[in-house]
């Protein structure tokens, strides 16, 4: 029997507000333990929460960007459970009246575009951090109370690749909005997955397992692959999947059942009496909508229309907002209608370099006008494509311009026929076999000869000119 995976994702995004969700402590990373804490986030007796205005506006922004309907009335609830990193013994979260409901994220799949429905977006506070030592655990509450958005999908995802594509898209959108840096390594984006299998064609859902502890998009994909094969095996043997939480172990590439907690969970949600109800008016929603920047999908469409890039190229260029902005500036500086030469630089060597450094295009230290200067040098046949790559390498991190590099390293192409004549004479003399081949009708042989000229000129000869000269000389003789 063939099985189909049914996957839902719960993503927690840490908001990049200056202060925590319900108190005025700073949100900062890498601080000494328990320095960004106050009576409220320590859960001291008598302390009370007051909502950070920006947390609600971030929730509205994200909700709108995902096409959700923003709820006109939203409230906070207490999720009650005991854990040493949870100072109040409850987490302030949202239960039945979340900030936003019902949106979607469109992803590209081999079978075409697919919409993954977003069930809800809600606000909540983060817990603190536990550090485990041999003889005990230590509690640091700097992170306690940091604002989070939880974004939950419907079980619309059917493969690990789709999950990966969804996460990439979601991250791209959230980063465009500027509400989070979505850095999984820093923990500012976290993802749990619910996964079950069912026979293909069946509409009823199977028993699901919850996967946790995945700290990269790749880990999510790997864990899902692994869980699919684990569940497939169980079902094929006629067994049944247990409803449980499983932890991904990246080192062993396996999921492990989390030892069932000593206690059953019953979160006993109820409306938090310390916080008021929040009413969001139509005018506020509309002005928030107006303030939403152009999102990746719209930007890609505009790039296709305005700059004539392919949909594939547009997708790559708009994945990160800062890259897209950089690309757009380059397109504007470059006068010609056909932006292909620029796109080739951006998507080829520049993005490769940026990715290997883990930075954006702008992080390479090249300005859009600097890049276009280089593109124009190639366009004007002053340097060859080949040379342009090495010039680019020097431009990165260097403070000099393409023209200066070409000048100081004397890299300009030789298009002067008199300067090339000598080299060509030598090459023809030294490669008699190829000359014979050409005359015997093997027109390809000229390319070998061009290569030899290029080599002898240290790459500076203009290959087009060289080819013309060679053909003329071979015809003459």
């Amino acid at each position, binding site marked *: 029997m063939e099985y189909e995976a049914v996957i839902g994702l719960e993503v927690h995004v840490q908001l990049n507000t200056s202060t925590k969700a319900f108190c005025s402590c700073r949100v900062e990373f890498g601080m000494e333990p328990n320095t960004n804490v106050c009576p409220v986030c320590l859960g*001291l007796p008598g302390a009370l929460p007051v909502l950070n205005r920006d947390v609600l506006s971030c929730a509205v922004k994200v909700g709108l960007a995902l096409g959700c309907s923003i709820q006109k009335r939203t409230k906070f609830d207490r999720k009650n459970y005991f854990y040493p990193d949870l100072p109040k013994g409850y987490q302030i979260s949202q239960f039945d009246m979340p900030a936003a409901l019902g949106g979607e994220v469109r992803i590209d799949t081999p079978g075409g575009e697919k919409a993954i429905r977003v069930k809800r977006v809600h606000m909540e506070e983060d817990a603190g951090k536990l550090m485990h030592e041999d003889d005990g655990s230590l509690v640091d509450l700097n992170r306690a109370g940091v604002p989070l958005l939880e974004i939950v999908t419907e079980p619309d995802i059917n493969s690990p690749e789709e999950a990966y594509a969804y996460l990439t898209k979601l991250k791209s959108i959230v980063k465009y909005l500027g509400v989070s840096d979505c850095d999984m390594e820093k923990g500012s984006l976290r993802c749990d997955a619910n996964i079950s299998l069912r026979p293909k064609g069946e509409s009823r859902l199977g028993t699901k397992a919850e996967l946790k502890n995945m700290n990269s998009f790749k880990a999510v994909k790997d864990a899902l692959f692994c869980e699919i094969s684990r569940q497939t095996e169980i079902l094929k043997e006629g067994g049944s999947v247990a409803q449980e939480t499983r932890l991904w172990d990246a080192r062993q590439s396996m999921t492990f059942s989390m030892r069932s907690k000593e206690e059953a969970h019953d979160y006993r949600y109820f409306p938090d*009496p310390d916080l008021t109800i929040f009413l969001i008016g139509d005018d506020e929603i509309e002005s928030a909508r107006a303030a939403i920047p152009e999102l990746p999908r719209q930007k890609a469409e505009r790039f296709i229309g305005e700059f004539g890039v392919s949909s594939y190229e547009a997708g790559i260029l708009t994945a990160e907002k800062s890259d897209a902005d950089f690309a757009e500036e380059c397109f504007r500086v470059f006068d010609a209608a056909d932006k292909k030469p620029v796109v080739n630089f951006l998507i080829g060597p520049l993005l490769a370099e940026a990715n290997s450094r883990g930075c954006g295009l702008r992080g390479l230290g090249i300005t859009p006008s600097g890049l276009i200067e280089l593109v124009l040098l190639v366009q004007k046949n002053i340097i060859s494509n080949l040379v342009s790559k090495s010039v680019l390498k020097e431009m990165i991190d260097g403070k000099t311009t393409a023209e200066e590099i070409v000048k100081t390293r004397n890299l300009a192409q030789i298009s002067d026929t008199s300067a090339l004549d000598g080299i060509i004479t030598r090459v023809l003399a030294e490669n008699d076999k190829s000359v014979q081949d050409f005359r015997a009708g093997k027109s390809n042989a000229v390319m070998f000869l061009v290569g030899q000229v290029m080599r002898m000129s240290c790459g500076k000869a203009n290959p087009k000119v060289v080819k013309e000269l060679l053909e003329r000389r071979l015809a003459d003789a």
Partner: protein
Amino acid sequence: MELYSMTGSQLAGLLAGRKASPQDIVSSLSRRAAAKEEQVRAYVRFEGGLESIPPEGGVEGKSPLSGLPVSIKDNICTRSFNTECCSRILSGYKPPYDATVVSRLKKAGASIISVKTNMDEFAFGSSTENSCFGPSRNPWDRRCVPGGSSGGSAAAVAADEAVFALGSDTGGSIRQPASFCGVVGLKPTYGRVSRYGLVAFASSLDQIGPITKDVRDSAMLLNVIAGYDPKDSTSVNEPVPDYTACLGRPVKGMRIGVPKEYMVEGIDPQVRESLLRALEEFRRLGAVCEEVSLPHTEFAVPVYYIIATAEASSNLARFDGVRYGFRAADAGGLHDMFSRTRGEGFGKEAKRRIILGTFALSHGYYDAYYLRALKVRTLIKEDFDKVFSGFDCIVTPTSPTPAFELGEKSGDPLKMYLSDICTISVNLAGIPAISLPCGFTGKGLPVGMQIMAGHFKEETIFKLAYAYEQAVSARERRRPEL
């Protein structure tokens, strides 16, 4: 006349005329407490005398409360001074911050008494018998309880060991002890006084309020503690009038409703009689008294015990032995540490309420208990809205009985809960209410009456209470025999 036996406004007069210093007043109270505390036990961790917390920072302007001492209930945070809610689980706890009411008092130049007043653990109770420090005694009769949960504050004021005191009221915890001790206790409108720094019992019901010797002192103290606090989302941004300004205004023509549901079975005949006499007095003053109905009154106690315990079960989850207070010794694992800390740290009543509240919120029971209670709360509130559309005030007994004896109800929690029957609806409706003395039983125990009004109508209450107090004080004013 000794300084300690004077009211706050009398002392303010002496201070203004430079006939006494703030230190003189604290010393006088301290001597009084030293002499009487063994019998009353109004304060916890009392060691032979009273001191005020040394002032720090600036005092803002000249306030009528400047130089006057205020005693604070043990569940209101005082920076660097023990705030233990009379619970073992908070033993030794010294908060690193002041409750908003305490900083307001400090700014007004008041002298904060550093030892706190006794209470039922976490304000769970109506007698102070649930204090981990042992019960306080009623200054009028030491065999009796002072009421609760703010029994220490009420007893201290009644015994002249305090001039002003702060209590907290979730279901009657200011008014009932005020009535048992023959003093004046006000529960302000929900949101009138900041709850920031009040250790929460039931967040949607709790309010801090004054316990004082007379109505004028109550208004004076409310003037300082009332007002919007950006640290408490539920405090209301409404202007604070000068509550003393309405005192002495005529009450002629005021319409007073007397709910029939409060005058039925279980009411002590002497309490009923005192109240009827008070109504006569109101009529003499020109007010109109008519019977009204609050039909959902009978549901107030069950609704209250669901909502209050549910919120309490969550509010008390933070006492887990991790960050402050008591931790059970030699706990094995984490779970063991949590449950032993809480099992050993909380007293019986606290455990009873935590379990009750946890149950009311738990899966499968939420709708039947908690949600239903929230709905009936709506009905109770609407009862009051209806009456206040035609009446200025509602007058009832504060408690169906005068002070009861120690141990009389401590074995039967339900009986204890039912003693809150007259005060609980006020918290559910969020309205203000005062308790003031309106007579004595044959055995000489004080009886209190309760005056309620609509949201933010504290002035109406003060006006009526003051008029009554002035009219009868000559006949009724007495002091406990200590």
